């Protein structure tokens, strides 16, 4: 019976999915539980900060600049129709600080650092490095996973802030330097519209949440990957897809909570 087989296939996938969610949740809890070493031996975390944070710098800065330039040009086109070019700074800054900074930086982070983390841990598993560590009485969650988790959580808000700052600079270059919007009104309108608590702090909270989501997904996919070459490459792809979806879904939820229009 093809229908019965199809149903059984769907059922198996659902059960497997729920199983993975449970395992993932336990993995997250274990990571938090064994985080002591990441801070007692902060050097481990610093090393991972280099690989997640510093190595993502270039792509984040360049992407931020480009996004800011595009926002400046498109924003000017639209605002000009209503004669409010002076609100360009507000438009660029608010879109970056509230949405584009955290979201785009997290998407780039997922494909740059997240996939690298998955591949690295998957490979460590495939070459039995994780098993070897366990046999040497060293907890791989504490030694390998937790420092990467904290490095990701620390670097994500910093990267998002750099993305936004670069974007504002890009918008300034286009709006003020090239098109010639009045510099004073560009900055003053921006400053009176962007609220530290409501906009910037909420943006930082968003990027923190994204950082947790992306690193947990990346690390879990690596840890759960079948220990073969195909297993690792499949897990790397899944990391990027799932992280991106998680970022956008979380963004909807967080935006609904933070900016309800009151």
């Amino acid at each position, binding site marked *: 019976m093809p229908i019965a087989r199809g149903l059984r296939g769907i059922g198996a996938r659902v059960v497997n999915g729920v199983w993975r969610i449970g395992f993932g949740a336990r993995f997250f809890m274990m990571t938090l539980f064994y985080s002591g070493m990441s801070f007692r031996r902060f*050097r481990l975390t*610093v*090393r991972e*900060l*280099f690989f997640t*944070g*510093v190595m993502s*710098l270039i792509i984040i800065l360049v992407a931020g600049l480009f996004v800011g330039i595009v926002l400046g040009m498109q924003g000017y086109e639209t605002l000009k129709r*209503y004669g*409010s070019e002076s609100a360009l700074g507000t438009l660029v*800054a608010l879109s970056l*600080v509230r949405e584009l900074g955290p979201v785009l930086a997290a998407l780039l982070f997922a494909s740059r650092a997240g996939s690298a983390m998955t591949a690295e841990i998957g490979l460590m598993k495939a070459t039995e490095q994780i098993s070897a560590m366990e046999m040497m009485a060293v907890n791989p969650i504490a030694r390998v996973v937790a420092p990467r988790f904290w490095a990701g959580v620390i*670097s994500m*808000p*910093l*990267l998002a*802030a*750099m993305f*936004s*700052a*670069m974007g*504002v600079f890009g918008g300034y270059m286009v709006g003020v330097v090239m098109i010639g919007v009045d510099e004073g009104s560009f*900055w003053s309108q*921006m*400053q*009176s*519209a*962007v*609220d*530290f608590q*409501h*906009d*910037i702090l909420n943006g*930082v909270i968003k990027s923190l949440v994204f950082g947790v989501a992306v690193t947990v997904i990346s690390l879990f996919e690596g840890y759960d990957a079948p220990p073969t070459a195909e297993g690792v490459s499949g897990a790397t792809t899944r990391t990027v897809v799932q992280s991106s979806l998680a970022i956008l879904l979380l963004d909807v939820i967080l935006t609904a909570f933070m900016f309800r229009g*009151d």
Partner: protein
Amino acid sequence: MERTTLDLWVGMFVVAGFGALMVLAFKVGNLSTYNVSQSYQLQAYFDNIGGLKAQASVKSAGVLVGRVTDVKLDTTLYKARVTMNIDKRYQFPKDTFANILTSGLLGEQYIGLMPGGDEVMLKDGEEFKKTQSAVVLEDLIGKFLYGKAEDSK
């Protein structure tokens, strides 16, 4: 334990990240213009606040002097009670006028303060006695059309 070039890079990364946050806070945002610890609260009742929201600015002679912190309906008076934080550096006389104004035709609404001539200054927790509600565009258009009709008689 010795310092390595890796530490230098990570250090630069962290400094640059916090630098970017500072730029966002002070250059892009308004952290430089409002300081919660050095402000006092004032209140005002309005018949109609239009589109005024929390975080809207409070200006006097065009200078930002504070922010609206809370907007509520007072159910005894059936008026909107607006609470605002005003910078400690600025004091206003008892008979100051609080108006709800609009920046530009379609811009955001804010509170404009027009100081009177009283010797006594408003203190923390007190309220503006004289207020003027927001201009509602529909009413304005209605009045204009009514006025036109009157004229043509």
